[in-house]
């Protein structure tokens, strides 16, 4: 096969793997915003915590799969506690106080991570069963990245299934459009809030664990990731799963191809895409209604 074609296929798959990692983040952020009306600026921090916790758990147990399950669970529990103690008193106040609160949390997590895990760059190796590469359409592709793609698509499918086909999902969707009505129907909205926040945060942590073998762990990964996630939800629109999904694919692919083709301007390509969306469709590509 033509070398150029195989190069593009590999980059396309790389982009897809990256996009799906970002999707886990954007979906969590979007879900939390849709339900709680909170833009969680500590979302990148939970991603970072997930990655570092996964790293430590992998160090203790030597098993990647244990880390993959345990780290998001722990971060989810942490999120649950934080929601109850800090966010709940603020629901009656405006957006700003909530955003500022999560900003303060991000500050604390940044320093905490530096304190516990140090400032040096760390890397995680993929589980032994997923080391090495496969040949797809004549091009060599790492097995682990293929795992990310399959895993990401699976999680996306499960999320869709839960949101669209279960009773819990119906409650969450109803809550996104009208919280008071839902609580008026006798549903414990506080519990739903807590669950949504915990699962959104756990999704971020899950993304962190899965990303660790591909992207290294370093201080600053929290906001690098948060910014990408914010760009995705601006492009895709907050509060919809579809917007997060297609926004992630657009930004993820743009980032990967930008880094390969124009390494010096990669960042500006993403911002260029976002600027174009803002100019032509300020309410986001997939958002219903006006800005």
């Amino acid at each position, binding site marked *: 096969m033509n070398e150029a074609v195989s190069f593009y296929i590999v980059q396309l798959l790389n982009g897809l793997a990256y996009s799906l990692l970002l999707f886990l983040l954007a979906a969590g952020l979007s879900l939390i*915003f849709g339900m709680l009306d909170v*833009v969680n*600026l500590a979302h990148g921090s939970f991603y970072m915590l997930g990655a570092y916790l996964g790293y430590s758990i992998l160090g203790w147990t030597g098993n990647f799969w244990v880390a993959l399950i345990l780290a998001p669970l722990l971060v989810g529990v942490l999120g649950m506690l934080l929601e109850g103690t*800090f966010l709940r*008193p*603020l629901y009656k*106040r405006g*957006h*700003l*106080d909530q*955003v*500022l*609160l999560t*900003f*303060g*949390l*991000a*500050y*604390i997590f*940044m*320093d*905490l991570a530096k*304190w516990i895990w140090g400032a040096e760059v760390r890397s995680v190796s993929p589980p032994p069963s997923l080391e090495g590469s496969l040949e797809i359409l004549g091009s060599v592709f790492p097995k682990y990245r293929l795992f990310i793609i399959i895993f990401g698509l699976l999680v996306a499918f499960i999320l869709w299934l839960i949101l669209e086909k279960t009773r819990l999902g119906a409650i969450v969707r109803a809550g996104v459009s009208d919280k008071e009505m839902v609580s008026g129907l006798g549903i414990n909205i506080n519990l739903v809030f807590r669950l949504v926040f915990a699962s959104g945060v756990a999704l971020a942590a899950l993304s962190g664990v899965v990303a660790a073998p591909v992207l290294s762990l370093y201080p600053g990964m929290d*906001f*690098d990731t948060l*910014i990408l996630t*914010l*760009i995705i*939800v*601006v492009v895709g629109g*907050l509060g919809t799963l579809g917007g997060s999904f297609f926004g992630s694919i657009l930004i993820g692919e743009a980032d990967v191809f930008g880094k390969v083709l124009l390494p*010096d301007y990669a*960042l*500006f390509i993403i*911002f260029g895409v*976002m*600027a174009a969306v*803002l*100019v032509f469709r*300020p*309410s986001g590509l997939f958002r219903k209604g006006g*800005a």
Partner: protein
Amino acid sequence: MQNVVPFQELQPGKRANEWKKYYLAALVIGLLLLFPFMNTSSYLINLLTEVFIFGIFAMSLDLILGFTGMASLGHAAFFGLGAYAAGIVAVRYSPDLFITLPAAVLVAALAALLVGLLALRTSGVYFLMLTLAFSQMFYAATFKWTWLTGGSDGLSGIPRPVLPFGGDSLINFFDSTNFYLLTLAVFLASYFLLWRIIHSPFGQVLIGIRENEKRMLAIGYETRKFKLASFVIAGAFGGVAGALNAFYIGYASPQDLFWAMSGQVLVMVIMGGAGTLIGPVLGAGLFLMLQNVVSSYTERWPIIMGAIFITFVLAAPKGMVGIYGKVAEKVRCRLWKH
């Protein structure tokens, strides 16, 4: 809040109160002018210099946050761009104060115009996310464009400014007292200008937007233009603060544009009290004092700062000015009773 008639305005002797305010202001300014000559330690002079610099920075953020009601989480971008603009001009061309400072204002204002034009196509939480995202873009750019900015090492060797007349021999800004007086002068000028802006018809429109943007739109104000103007002015003053800081420490680094810096100035505004001019300055003072004290005991200042931030957001969202107002109200109620 700003548009509610304050309690004392209903009282007789309001004009006496006004005059008291001016006397107090004159007294404070006089004391600040004399401060370095009262056998003060250079530590205190430097601390106050920093308070003025960050006071300007915090006031500029408050113009958009507290007076226009737009939350920007990327205000450090303009601080940092001002620092780099002033630094690059000073290092490569001339340390003349009347060239470096306008350069910083120009670059910061242009960047604010660019960000504002795009970010103000949205509002609310989207605006907030976009300001944060754009500031991180500038942050990444300072890393990438090593030929211009010195990359991750930062831009070092920025000289203190020089006046176009007389040069070093007249006023030497390497002297910490002279530099203190320079920052004091710029600070007072900024305070006065911002005060005039807020109390002008334009400023009243901004406050109107904060209180009820839809109503302002319905009356016929093109609120987006007012918001953009407010954002650009705030960016320009942020640039002034950045330039002064670059002169002060002789160094501009990507950290000046980092989100943590945006967070830091937000804390100052929140601690002091958003929606007032003096609040952010007091917040900057308290913040820098705390930072100085805490940093001498522990390296974990960011954690403590985050905790202070959260405490203020949860318990005292109106900051020190709000706390003072509450206490004063209580005292006044007591006095009226007896």
